[in-house]
């Protein structure tokens, strides 16, 4: 659907963050750092269904049901059923913490197309430590149920300094449970995760080794399993276009109805954040300040404004520019042309990294040194 006055196309992707509540406490959580403010007054079932109808009418066809933990919503089946009826391809993005065999089957009946399960480590000890909650055994059980019930299975492994050495074991596990796609996603330091960037950042050597292991695993794989290695922004020469360009493809609705161009944009406190309780999705997408502010290229400053890459990478990530430079219209500091790039170089310089992974000697088992890692439950592990 094109808006007559602007030539802007409608969204293709609706990311529905059903709740920020979560039984896991991951230190790399990408929910906004002030997620606590959105724990109450969540959209009702009817409000979600209205959001789905509006997005579908505008042309959205992919629906991500995410969180927090979306399975905490007892109306998940109802929301999936409506989405399916509307013609969405429905993706459930879950920790699988409370995803019983029965629930997996009910969701299938409601029309759910695919389940993506995140895992925090390749073994129980690492996984449960990093998730801050004992959940490894539940995840493994759910993975088998998901495959048994005929869903495509996507396995998502967010890697950072404390688990990136487990890439090989993780891929072996994914292959064993017959995953169809595996995302080895280098941690992105957005929202809550920004607090932990110094502690979570891997070394360049760790990243190179993980990349090599992924390539080696791919080359000896006998069954069809796509493995994506999502390279980390901080180490890249070229920046990637955030959400395929601001306000072009993706629309995100947060648990209490805030409508955002990406799941990180809740940090844009200098702009009024529109809410689907007060305005139609159509009006927000085409007319709100938030969605129009960084559309296209006319908002750009130097060095973006004269850069030949500007139509390809759109100046990178607005949220990253805001978090590092306090101005979302600046060039993404991950870009080598950014005047703020020194901040990133300093962070990724191995010599400046203060918290190496330390295996402590301990007769009752080896412990990991987490330094100043902040868990989502607000408790500090030291």
């Amino acid at each position, binding site marked *: 659907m094109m808006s007559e006055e602007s030539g802007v196309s409608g969204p293709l992707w609706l990311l529905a963050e059903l709740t920020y509540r979560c039984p896991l406490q991951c230190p790399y959580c990408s929910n906004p750092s002030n997620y606590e403010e959105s724990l109450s007054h969540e959209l009702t079932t009817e409000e979600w269904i209205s959001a789905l109808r509006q997005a579908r009418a505008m042309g959205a066809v992919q629906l991500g049901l995410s969180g927090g933990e979306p399975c905490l919503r007892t109306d998940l089946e109802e929301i999936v059923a409506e989405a399916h009826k509307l013609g969405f*391809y429905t993706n459930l993005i879950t920790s699988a913490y409370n995803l019983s065999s029965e629930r997996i089957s009910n969701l299938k009946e409601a029309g759910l197309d*695919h389940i993506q399960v995140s895992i925090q480590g390749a073994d129980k000890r690492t996984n449960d430590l990093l998730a801050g909650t004992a959940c490894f055994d539940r995840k493994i059980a759910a993975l088998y149920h998901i495959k048994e019930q005929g869903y495509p299975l996507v396995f998502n492994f967010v890697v950072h300094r404390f688990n990136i050495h487990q890439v090989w074991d993780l891929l072996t596990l994914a292959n064993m449970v017959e995953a169809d796609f595996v995302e080895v996603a280098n941690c992105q330091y957005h929202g809550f995760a920004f607090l932990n960037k110094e502690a979570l950042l891997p070394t360049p050597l760790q990243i190179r080794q993980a990349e090599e292991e992924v390539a080696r695993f791919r080359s000896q794989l006998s069954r069809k399993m796509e493995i994506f290695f999502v390279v980390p922004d901080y180490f890249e020469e070229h920046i990637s276009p955030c959400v395929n360009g601001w306000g072009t493809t993706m629309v995100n609705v947060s648990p209490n109805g805030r409508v955002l161009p990406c799941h990180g944009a809740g940090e844009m406190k200098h702009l009024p954040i529109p809410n689907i309780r007060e305005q139609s999705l159509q009006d927000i997408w085409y007319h709100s300040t938030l969605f129009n502010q960084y559309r296209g290229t006319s908002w750009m400053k130097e060095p973006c404004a004269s850069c030949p890459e500007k139509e390809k990478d759109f100046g990178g990530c607005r949220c990253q520019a805001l978090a590092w430079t306090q101005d979302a219209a600046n060039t993404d500091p991950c870009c080598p042309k950014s005047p703020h790039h020194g901040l990133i170089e300093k962070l990724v310089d191995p010599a400046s990294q203060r918290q190496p992974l330390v295996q402590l000697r301990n007769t009752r088992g080896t412990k990991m040194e987490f330094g100043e890692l902040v868990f989502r439950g607000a408790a500090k592990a030291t």
Partner: protein
Amino acid sequence: MSIYLHSIITRNSMYRFQWEETQGCHVLLYPEGLVQLNQTAATVLELCGEETTAAALIETLQERYPQADTLVEDVMSFLHEARDENWIVVRDTE
């Protein structure tokens, strides 16, 4: 593996094939992804919704488009591409 005229072809059940009014084309939907299909690709993939053979596909398309003179090459080349993309599953007749 080559695709022969007698090879049995079906659309991979992991992909959903549907018409999208707002995009004005058929699409293939899969976990977190979307492929917009041109007319030829859409016609072939629609016919692969039920088990068929390359020969039967070509025959149907020949009837539908009698003027097309490179149909065999076009269809076979698309089927190879579709197989490499995992959109279709190909097996030989027993």
